[in-house]
């Protein structure tokens, strides 16, 4: 007896519908749990006071500062390096062993687990280079971690700029660098910025690479050699040790909200491209 294919079609449609619904449901559940369990404890005091008593009391101010410093400094180092490399690869060279090597490095580093960055950063920066658990060690490690992403997205964005724009620019007797800065970069800008925002998002949520390099001191970091916590590290410690479930949820909420904001900014930037050129 052959089952009517139209019947199968209907079943499949319901099945797929259900699974999609289920998946969205997972996301909604996760965000809802964090939101409902965390928001009662999220207030101005939580954001602006530092942790006390191992995090049982107080807020997360020093961890917010730690996160901001770590991420901003890493972006500060990785962006010129990454974008510069991308510009160099696309505008200034032909395909050669050099470019192939860089591409190989970028592709290979793409999937490296963050614990290996932690392993490397701890032994190399913290111990061998004697930086101790410090902002500096953390920044260097995170920089290496986000460099491939920035190079890759910048390269794609620059490659996507139509050739005509460059040709027109040269025909107006602009130099290469003038073309790059006044024509190519502005047009590739949103794509590059999206890559940067992606890296920011990743760095904010990163734990394994940070806890072994920047450490987990509860103090507010005020110099490059100071140790400190990021929000993600603080959350991890609060959660694992059962220090305070309420503070843990609240910290998670701040984390998720931050990432949501970063994503929204990235989307806003990306959409400016489509609106500009459509």
């Amino acid at each position, binding site marked *: 007896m052959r089952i009517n294919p139209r019947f199968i*079609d209907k079943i499949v449609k319901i099945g797929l519908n259900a699974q999609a619904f289920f998946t969205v449901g997972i996301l909604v559940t996760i965000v809802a749990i964090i939101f409902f369990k965390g928001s009662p404890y999220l207030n101005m005091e939580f954001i602006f006071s530092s942790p006390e008593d191992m995090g049982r009391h107080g807020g997360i101010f020093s961890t917010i500062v730690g996160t901001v410093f770590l991420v901003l400094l890493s972006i500060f180092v990785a962006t010129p390096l990454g974008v510069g490399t991308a510009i160099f690869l696309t505008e200034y060279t032909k395909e050669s062993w050099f470019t192939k090597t860089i591409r190989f490095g970028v592709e290979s580093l793409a999937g490296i687990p963050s614990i290996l960055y932690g392993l490397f950063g701890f032994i190399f920066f913290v111990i061998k280079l004697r930086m101790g658990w410090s902002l500096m060690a953390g920044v260097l490690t995170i920089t290496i971690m986000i460099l491939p992403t920035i190079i890759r997205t910048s390269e794609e964005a620059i490659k996507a700029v139509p050739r005509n724009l460059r040709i027109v620019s040269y025909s107006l007797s602009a130099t290469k660098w003038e073309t790059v800065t006044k024509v190519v970069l502005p047009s590739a800008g949103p794509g590059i910025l999206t890559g940067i925002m992606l890296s920011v998002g990743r760095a904010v949520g990163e734990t394994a690479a940070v806890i072994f390099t920047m450490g987990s001191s509860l103090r507010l970091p005020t110099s490059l050699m100071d140790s400190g916590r990021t929000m993600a590290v603080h959350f991890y410690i609060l959660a694992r040790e059962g220090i305070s479930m309420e503070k843990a949820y609240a910290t998670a909420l701040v984390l998720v909200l931050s990432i949501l904001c970063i994503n929204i900014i990235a989307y806003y930037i990306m959409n400016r491209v489509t609106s500009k050129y459509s």
Partner: protein
Amino acid sequence: MIKKAFTKEHFVKWVLIAFALSSLLFLFLIFIFILAEGLPLFHKIGLKNIIFGFKWAPTKGSFGIFPMIVSSFLVTFGALVIGAPLGLSCAIYLSEYSGKKLKLFLKPALELLAGIPSVVYGFLGVIYIVPLVRNYFGGPGFSILATSVILGVMILPTVISISFDSLMSVPKTYREGSFAMGATKWQTIYKVIIPAARSGILASFILGMGRAIGETMAVIMVAGNALKIPTSVLDPLRTLTSNIALELAYATGDHRLGLFSTGVVLLVIIMALNYIANFAIKRRVLK
């Protein structure tokens, strides 16, 4: 004036070369360091003893990581069992059944899911999934099952977005031709579209595997970290990544080198997975 512009151009070029070289330095620094620290132990103890050794007791001279290799693969396959069908179904739904509005809404939703830090997944896993496994299935709750569930959810965004891209790039004509011959939607999907997109879909699974096998923090929280090879899905386990994270802070001498050797094994596995995934995609482009 022209001379000035010329030297400025030269200057810029050399600055950019410097940047590119620095990037290269940074990129390969980590590679070379891990290899330099990790390879010697293979030489000293023997590749077979490390990869197929059954006992990890580095302070006593045993560097066998076989149980951890097995555990890593077990939870990765478990994650695929949970995440691949679900992810593929969502991708199919997104590309074939949903309108533009839904697509616009679901992409950012996916990216938010992907952006949630792994420690948050681990935390929710400990609070909700581990007790669930313990109360309804048995065992301590910290298990292959719990870890696979968490990892399965974590690889969903990867599987969905890459499969989705792959399905969307199947030309419209394939679908139209199939419908013109009287096939139903599902028949079209099943017999035409999925085969056409299969290398991309496969690539998404493999990249999902890469993500799962490299996950550390969430796994430490829900896996239980026992050294023995698990004999049931309800047994606790330790993955290669968890091992590094647990012992890194205090390992010295050969013990530390052992962790780097574990890192080398991880590197090899992930680079292999990446290579296979890219190879699978390349085949599609050539088709």
